[in-house]
């Protein structure tokens, strides 16, 4: 029976950041961490926090993992730039995960679309 993406909302902010980072394709752990830290409003991540959320996302079926890199963006990552062994696991969005990401994005959009919020934002700009 198809699962309802709404059932998992609202998502934790970090989970949403991770899902957004995976929208562009597979990433390994280090790349995910860098991508999340680069997003506006994201905090600095530590491996424990990162992998705890990845484990939960794997459990919920939002993402799955592969042991070797597939095509796409991931191959552009220069593995050896800052040293360390080549990663073996890559994470990618599942269709369900994509649906949940879309649902959360719509929810957040709906929040920002509220006229009071827009007035607040326009007042800040001026």
């Amino acid at each position, binding site marked *: 029976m198809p699962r309802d993406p709404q059932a*998992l*909302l*609202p*998502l*934790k*902010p970090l*989970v949403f950041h991770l899902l957004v980072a995976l929208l562009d394709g597979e990433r*390994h*752990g*280090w790349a995910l*961490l860098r991508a999340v830290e680069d997003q506006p409003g994201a905090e*600095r991540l*530590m*491996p*424990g*926090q*990162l*992998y*705890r*959320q*990845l*484990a*939960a*996302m794997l*459990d*919920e079926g*939002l993402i799955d993992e592969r042991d070797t890199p597939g095509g796409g963006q991931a191959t552009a990552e220069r593995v050896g730039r*800052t*040293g*360390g*062994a080549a*990663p*073996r*696991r890559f994470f990618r969005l599942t269709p369900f995960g994509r649906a949940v990401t879309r649902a959360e994005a719509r929810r957040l959009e709906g929040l920002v679309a509220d006229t009071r919020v827009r007035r607040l934002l326009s007042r800040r700009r001026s």
Partner: protein
Amino acid sequence: MSAAPGRGERGERGERFYRGLLRVFPPAFRARHADEMTAVFRRQRARAAGRPLAIAALWGRAVRDAVTQGLALRAGRTGVTAGRRAGRTGVATGTPAGAGRQGASWHPVADIRVAVRGLRAAPVPTLVVLVALGLGLGGNAALATVAYDLLIDPLPYPHADRIVQPWKMRPSMRGLALSPSESDLDRWQDAPGIDTLVRFEPVRVTLLDATGPVLVDAARIEPALLDFAGAPVELGRPFTDEDARGAVAAPVALVSHALWQVRFGGAPDVLGRTIELDEVRHTIVGVLPPRFRLTHQRPDVVVPLATAPVRPDGSRAPRAVSALIRLAPGATAAGVGPVLTSRLERPDDWSVVLRATSEMIGPLREAVLVLLAAVACVLLIACANVAHVLLARNVGRRRELAVRAALGATRARLFAQVLTEHVVLSIAAGVVGAGLAWAALEGLALWRPAELQALAFVEVRPLTVAISLGLSIVAGLAVGLLPAWMAARSAVASRRVDGTRTTGDARSRWVRRGLNVVEVAAALVLLLAASLLVRTYVQLSHRDLGFAPAGVVALDVRLLPSRYPTPAAQDAFITALAAGLRAQPGVTDVSAAALVPPRGGVFFSALEIEGRGEAVQTQFDGGTVAPGFFRTLGIPIREGRAFDEADVREERPVVVVSQGTARRFWPDGDAIGRRLRLGPKDPWSTVVGVAGDVTSSSSGLDQPQFYLPLVAGQTPGAPTVVVRTTGSTEALVTAARGLVAGIDDHVAITSIRTLDADVAATNVRPRFNALLLGLLAGLGLILAVTGVFGVVNHAVGLRTRELGVRLALGASPAALGRQVIGEALAVGLAGVAAGVALWPLASDGLGTMLHGLAAVDGTQLGAAAVVLLAATAAAAWLPARRAMRVDPVVAMRTE
């Protein structure tokens, strides 16, 4: 060419450490993600390379990340949704007291809240535990503080563990030791193994102020001693080397904090004021810190120790100077002792012994250890009592725990909750115990016998509270573990919510009976120890002293050399005083002596018995005495005569020996007329009399007792004047004070006392020991009896239905009562047997507290056993009556 090993090694170490941190995470998670997490962290470190602060911050975040995320995972807190703490199954954990499946984790805050509520709901058992355990914990905390102050940290000096006091000994002295001479100390100054050596001389000086002369404790100290003691002056300045050199010309002094407060009102302008010590004006240059002490003394005044003049032959004038040595780090007393011995003038005859500060309190050490063991016994009994209460509470809570088990609480969860409650209770008892310990130590400070000087330094400190609370946690765990385990086990195993009995109850009853046996055994040991010490005290206080102290007053005065420079002047004062005393109503005899029993002394010389060969270094008791001494003190003359005025006037070489001495040196029984001398240059003295043996503080060493005629000027200061009266000793004391002041109001009375009081003072320590142990034994007995009562009463309560059935079937109430008491007596007997078996171990520890008296005899053992069995039977009496009065009809309706 090698690579940069440092960075690589550091990297490996860092990685190993990070992997160690990851052990906080659950094993399954680690197995899946640890490698990648380590790889990510490695990159983060590489990113921060070259920036030490950034690396340090990263490690801080890594530790925090591991702990918080790892524990969260172990607590089952996972999920992607914000705002909800959903477990893997998505079901809420709920509160420990609520319905729903309860996990196996420990919820400390909630459990503590539940525990406090539960304890308030059952005030009687809670109070019983607080009182019983509080007494045991408080007693232990108080005694442990005493033990710490006396045994572990008796000297609050820096590096006190390295501080020793040097003594010189010879084989013939059999344990007695002498202080080293100043020449010895000079030779030791730069010995290897010695870090610092300081000298001091405890003295008593006459302090003269507006209220009159008063004798105070004082000391002459080297300027370096205050540094050695880590005691900077509170006000003013310490002594300098110039002060020591100029000690005669411009004398200075430091006063104690107490003296400053009492005599100078704590005024800051005390500096520069003068005080008269031994008729010499001293300028006050500073105030000592409040807790300053010199070994076991708290001197009121200290003055610089003037360096003794060096004689032409290089030696110094002999002077009794004490010393303290701080050993160099790593040096030991056993290693440094021989080095110092080798530097003595006669290293073949003498040896140096270095005694640690903790040994300086002597026999009190053993007493403290015995009392510690005794109070630990009391705590053991108290813990057994508490275990009873907790086991009994388990029965009452069976339904509650069974309900929770039925609703899904695991055994571990129930165990954690019940144990938390027990530990909370015992910590509360620990707080009560800390309060009781404080009260006990304050009480000790108030009515401590004056003779037990060492106890003056014991005071309440944070250690007292820490010990009480620390012990309470240990006790709570020790006592609470078994009941908690049994409660959880029976609740989960039976899952019966109707509260009916299960096999767990029988086990509980056996456990409680076993605890009763332990309590009774410990109480027996305490009772025997206390009775033994009481017997010791009674025997000591009734022993034959060899003299008659009743009605005798001893008076010591201090004749300053400046006012009484010659023996004739001293003799004139004593003669005038004696004449005045003789004229007092009721006075029958007046005499004088260098030392008066029971205060013994140790005189030391080369004793030579005529016709017996070479002189032997011997110590002896007795000393110089004036005519009339033996009559005044009631010492019988068994043979020959005592001294008379002619002996003194003509300075005849005569001696009186004790009976034991005569038997030892002249076993043929004919001592009168024999000759001996107490030094190669002394004249031969003829034995003119044999007196009865006298017991004094040093006579336990089987020393010979020789008495010589007291010649004026032989005693430094003045001899002790002794007066026998048939009238009131209080009136005589008052008259004596007036007489001394009338002759010379600059003369201070060092001490004035009745010999009865002196004799009683020698018994103070045995009395104190007996009293304290008696109190502990009484407490132990009360607690043990309470424990027996609790168990028997509870058993009767449980057996109400059975008793009702038996009564209905025709059993006589008396028989039921006898059965209840019989069961209690069986436990008592088992306890007594266990106690008797343990007693030999305990009695070994009593050692020298028994003063050589025999160990416990059959009568004492029998008496203690009877007392305990009677107490056990008495404890069972009320429950027996309850059993006898059971109404069969009501009982059979009762569940």
